[in-house]
């Protein structure tokens, strides 16, 4: 059984102007020790997906349907108090901006001890020792000194290391990292990513990595979900998605990277922009930007405009695209016979 199983998750925000559907029919699963990447552009719903796992979406947002099962336990209906025992303990989170996450008026040591004491019956001295140990694991120089320092005394990279140490404090099963390196410089980003990867492997912690950087996803994760306008449009092994993306949007995203074009030549851009979640187009949300929404004779595919694409299996990937479905149906050898796994609705 998978460690975390999200099925048909539906999240909405009840706004005065009407309801905005932030997540539609999201399903995925995560095994123990597995590293999953969630990629997409801003507004695709990747952060909402991560926040929803820990029920961290604030009003007016609410879970309208679907289930999130962690270790066999249903999280969507869990009482706040019971959820408190999982949040930060079994599943911990790393946020984008390290300055926002750390409390500026508490020393690093106080924050770490506070976190330990909230979840365990433990003496302050023991808690400090555990904290010290975790700081060593993330290679913080002179950790004893750091415990008594305040966040503003540390650099951005150092702060993010401390956040990783805090995330690891209670030996979680899953770490959810929401753009953990976006605020950092390239060389620091590389260091933090290596560190995160190393620690996850060493302690067999599963990682959900949310990012817009395909390079990072390719280096760190084993499986990838691609999101667009609140839906998962493609998921599969990271290598296959990077090397052989099936969905036109994923292809477009990868081809738009500067390294995919000849230097000095125009980049392969995707026309248009992602629609806002308040008015997603009917059918496949990507169809207005998609170059495949015409069929071979040059007529617009009716399906793309009217029908939300279901998942088809192509290789080891699951793709929500009418064009890919037609291709797979035409050439059934192309698809794996019964690879459809739990993740697919």
């Amino acid at each position: 059984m998978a460690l975390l199983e999200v099925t048909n998750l539906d999240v909405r925000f009840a706004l005065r102007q009407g309801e905005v559907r932030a997540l539609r029919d999201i399903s995925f699963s995560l095994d123990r020790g597995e590293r999953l990447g969630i990629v997409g552009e801003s507004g695709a719903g990747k952060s909402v997906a991560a926040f929803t796992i820990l029920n961290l979406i604030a009003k007016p947002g609410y879970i309208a349907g679907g289930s999130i099962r962690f270790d066999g336990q249903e999280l969507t209906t869990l009482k706040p108090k019971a959820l408190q025992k999982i949040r930060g303990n079994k599943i911990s989170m790393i946020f984008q901006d390290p300055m926002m996450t750390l409390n500026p008026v508490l020393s690093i040591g106080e924050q770490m001890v506070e976190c330990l004491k909230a979840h365990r019956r433990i003496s302050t001295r023991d808690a400090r020792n555990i904290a010290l140990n975790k700081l060593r694991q993330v290679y913080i120089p002179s950790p004893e000194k750091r415990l008594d320092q305040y966040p503003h005394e540390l650099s951005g990279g150092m702060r993010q290391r401390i956040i990783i140490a805090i995330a690891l404090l209670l030996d979680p099963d899953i770490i959810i990292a929401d753009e953990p390196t976006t605020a950092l410089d390239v060389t620091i980003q590389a260091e933090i990513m290596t560190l995160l990867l190393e620690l996850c492997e060493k302690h067999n912690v599963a990682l959900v990595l949310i990012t817009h950087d395909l390079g990072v996803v390719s280096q760190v994760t084993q499986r990838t979900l691609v999101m667009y306008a609140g839906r998962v449009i493609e998921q599969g092994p990271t290598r296959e998605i990077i090397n052989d993306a099936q969905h036109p949007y994923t292809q477009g995203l990868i081809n738009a990277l500067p390294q995919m074009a000849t230097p000095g030549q125009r980049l392969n851009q995707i026309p248009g922009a992602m629609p806002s979640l308040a008015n997603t187009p009917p059918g496949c949300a990507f169809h207005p930007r998609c170059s495949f929404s015409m069929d071979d004779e040059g007529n617009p595919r009716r399906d793309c405009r009217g029908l939300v694409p279901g998942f088809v299996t192509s290789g080891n990937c699951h793709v929500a695209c009418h064009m890919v479905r037609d291709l797979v149906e035409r050439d059934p050898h192309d698809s794996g016979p019964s690879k459809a796994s739990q993740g697919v609705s």
Partner: protein
Amino acid sequence: MSQAVTQVTETAVPERAASTLLEIRGLEKRFPLSGDFLDQLRFERGKLVRRQDYVHAINGVDIDVRRGEALCVVGESGCGKSTVARMVMGLLSPSRGEIHYDGQRIDNLSPRQLLPFRRRMQMIFQNPYASLNPRMTIQQTLEEPLRFHHPDWSRERIRQQVTEVMGSVGIDPDWGKRFGHEFSGGQRQRIAIARALVVDPEFIVADEPISALDVSIQAQVLNLMMDAQRERHLTYLFITHDLAVVEHFGTRVVVMYLGRVCEIAETRQLFAAPQHPYTQALLSAIPRLEDDRPDHIRLSGEVPTPVNLPSGCVFHGRCPHANERCRQEIPELIASSGGTRVACHAVEEGRITA
């Protein structure tokens, strides 16, 4: 040492004669850190002393921008790349050093004297959410620079010029009546580019113009900037931290660290054979699609503060090749193989090979 200096001037002179548009010489900028007079007074060993601290943002930078090229300046945050851009535009005045534009010194001109240059050089800023005036319609935003620089133009002529530029950057004429907040980040950056192009400049300073945008939108804006360069024969000074963009967009690259230039090279040359140890580390840190695992050169420590600059080479504290000379003596930019210029004792002495 003296030999090194002559080498630099030798290569620099023919460049200038050929086609140098902008010349930056010995540029320095420090920002005072300790407030006003009373804040600077300290009591030390029973005496009242006045002490001033400075952030040494730029410490002796020489850059040439050649006509028609896209010169990219890369470096991590705090290396001074944006400060260079702002000084070139005259938004900040240098503490020391000179900036020459098309043969004329511009850093000491009065605002009025600077006016004709302002029309020829324009700037695109990082954050299109902040760089557009929220109380102006797009039409007003685009007309303002023309009204300012061409007071003699008729209303009709201004409108015509705006319409033409809107068309060339792919702005719908209907946008004119709307306000900045009604647009997405990519659309706003398009408007900001149109505003820069409307006075028909020859030189554009772009300070991280695509960093705030999504991947698919980044490609659109980069394409737009490259099209504009081709059609209007623009010269770019492009500030960025994204090396993948540099590799694609730049003619030449300047790598900066802590207010100094480490390496200047042709883009292809820099990516094929980076010479400065910092450049090597920087390039190895780019997450590549082909990689299964991050594999980068690990630098020890962090960027030192620009308040107390390290002695000698600014990079020596993190450099795996640093020796005693690096700790003492500031390296000069020296011509190296492949037309590259590197400021590194180890490269000069042949202690490291590219």
